[in-house]
């Protein structure tokens, strides 16, 4: 059975897309068939991680949502490019063309259109997981993604504004009666592991959500300018271990 997971954050810059790409790769390296959909329609970024030239993309999620392309036509199989022996990654890009972005934002799209796209991808490619990278904040397209997916993974930094917004997101997410999993990201180096653990327990308790894990701030990730996936590039890096642990946690999602 496929599990669809919306990866979301209240604020931008939480490392949501980095997490999505790395967890997807970690799952694929375990032999899973993983779909990864860029639903950050206002500021797509996954193509940078996967080194996909936007000009070479025939159809995008914008076309799928506008009803002009089938979901599988807007899907790129990356497994060979990423050098996987087993395990698959199917990537659905969003358009990087301003005119198309504006068109989608202007016209919007329907629940049915998005839900059908999710189902069709799951069935067509026999996916184990479909990770959906959303646009940060509380916007209409975000609410759609959160409502349609089986699980919601909320990414937050330890930051007053971010935690506040994440709290709001969790409260809103309960409306859809879907499991919510919290990931604390970009933990500053000066904050100790024990302290993060305690803070995570507090959050988990206050908001009654699953604390999926936390990932420290990484100079290497920042320095890579989103152009590489740490899980592939440096498998022995401690941060990679964190991503793998999160992937393991995703495997426990019912």
């Amino acid at each position: 059975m496929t599990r669809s997971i919306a990866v979301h954050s209240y604020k931008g810059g939480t490392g949501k897309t980095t997490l999505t790409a790395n967890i997807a790769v970690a799952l694929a390296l375990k032999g899973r068939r993983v779909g990864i959909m860029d639903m950050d329609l206002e500021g797509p970024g996954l193509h940078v991680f996967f080194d996909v030239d936007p000009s070479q993309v025939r159809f995008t999620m914008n076309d799928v949502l506008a009803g002009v392309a089938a979901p599988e036509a807007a899907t790129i199989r990356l497994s060979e490019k990423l050098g996987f022996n087993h395990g698959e990654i199917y990537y659905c890009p969003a358009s990087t063309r301003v005119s198309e972005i504006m068109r989608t934002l202007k016209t919007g799209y329907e629940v049915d259109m998005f839900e059908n796209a999710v189902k069709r991808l799951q069935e067509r490619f026999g996916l184990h997981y479909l990770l959906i990278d959303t646009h940060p904040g509380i916007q209409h397209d975000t609410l759609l993604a959160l409502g349609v997916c089986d699980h919601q993974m909320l990414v937050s930094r330890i930051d007053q504004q971010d935690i506040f917004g994440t709290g709001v997101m969790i409260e809103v997410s309960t409306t859809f009666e879907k499991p919510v999993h919290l990931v604390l990201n970009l933990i500053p180096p000066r904050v100790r592991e024990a302290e993060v653990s305690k803070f995570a327990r507090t959050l988990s308790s206050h908001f009654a959500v699953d604390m999926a894990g936390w990932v420290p701030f990484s100079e290497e990730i920042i320095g890579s300018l989103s152009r590489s996936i740490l899980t592939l590039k440096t498998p022995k890096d401690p941060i990679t271990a964190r991503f793998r642990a999160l992937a393991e946690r995703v495997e426990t999602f019912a």
Partner: protein
Amino acid sequence: MTLTVSVNNAIYSPPTPYIFSWAVKDPSGSSRSTTSNVVSVTPAWAFSVVYPTNFSGASLNLPGVYSINVSETIPTSTPNVVTGAFTVGVTDSGTYERTYPVQFQAGGYLPADTVNITVTRSGNPVPAFSASRTSDTNGLITVSWQTLPNTSTGNYAVTVVGKNTPPKSVPDTEQFVIYPTNITVTGFNPVKTSLERSETEGFRFNATYFGGPSVTLGSSTIRLSEPGGSTTHFTTASYNSTLGTFSAVFIIPINGGTGTWTASLDPNSLADPYGNGGPLQSKSLTFNVLPAILTVSLLPSSTVLSVGETLTIQGSVATPNGAIFSQGTVLASITISGRSVGSPVSLTYDPTREQWIGNYKVAPSDPSGAWLVTVSASDSYGNVGQSSVVVSVNVPSAQSSTSMLWSYLLIVLLVAALGFIILITRKRGLTRREVKLDLTAIKSQADKVKSDDFLQSVREQLKRKKQEVGLEKQDHD
């Protein structure tokens, strides 16, 4: 519109009269004429006329190209001595950048007529602009369209039609193009002008579109060059609604170069979600990076020692940002009244306790008294720190400790212990102090979102869909 002709090599001695005839053909093909009379007294001179003022029956009411033809009639009859042209448009420019105003002007309408100005893009009317104006007593209308940061780029057309004015021989219509606009960056400044390695530098700047509206969406990459320029780092700035500016942070690496760092916003490094970018030219700032002064906090394990006992020297070392310093060299030297006791002790890092620890065994030859233990921490990058503590050592041959020494020792140790406890408390309480959970405010905000019509609509659609699937399943069963 002033039309001017320059004349060279004219006959001027004796003074000679010249007559020129002007003919201006408007876009409909109608030609209007006038003459210029000049008495030549110098070899070079110029003469001008004003169109349409000096041309009987002329106007600038039609859009398009107006061709000019000037002929000399006196002293010699020379047709077409000079030709030229000018263009009249409905817009004040054929191309615009977003956020710039597009000015429309057209004339030749009946006074007080209702004039519709329609802007289309790919044949479709632009909803953001729809205007109807009453022409003035001269039959002129002027309208301005203020474009926005997210106005669609591309080819546009404007058409102006009067309700009662008979159709013009050349309609008032014109194409123009809107391009993405340039974002101007001002006030690019560092938060600190000087800081130590491991500390966090902040950057702030304001970004505005033409006309002054602030840019509040998008991000920018800031390039940081270490002294010498051979090592480069990057950080991302995004809009901080609390500060009302774009902001970014960067942690200076513990091995970062010392001296003057340069942070640059390269051309077009800032982009908003609509495709507008800036700045046009690179913006730079500098700040100074100093070696990190390491904080050494000592905690002696034993206060009074005798011969054969081990003096355990332990303490924590932290970088200026409070991070544990675990890689480097930490040495302890012992002195009494300026004289060295034994050889320097090398401390090793215990990751479990997050402490640097070293031992010194008190020898019979060591002097009794208050030993000053000085611990120095350093790394290969030149970051250093130092701290001292006093311990009392009682060697049999010199068992002359006094109650004053005990008191002194006790006070020193109490102060050291208190300092260490404060340090630990401060570090461990960091997250709790910085991040507070206001559950009431969170719930209140969430309730607002939950009551949003769209959210309710999505819920209803999903619920209905779920029910439909359930019914289908029942039918199937």
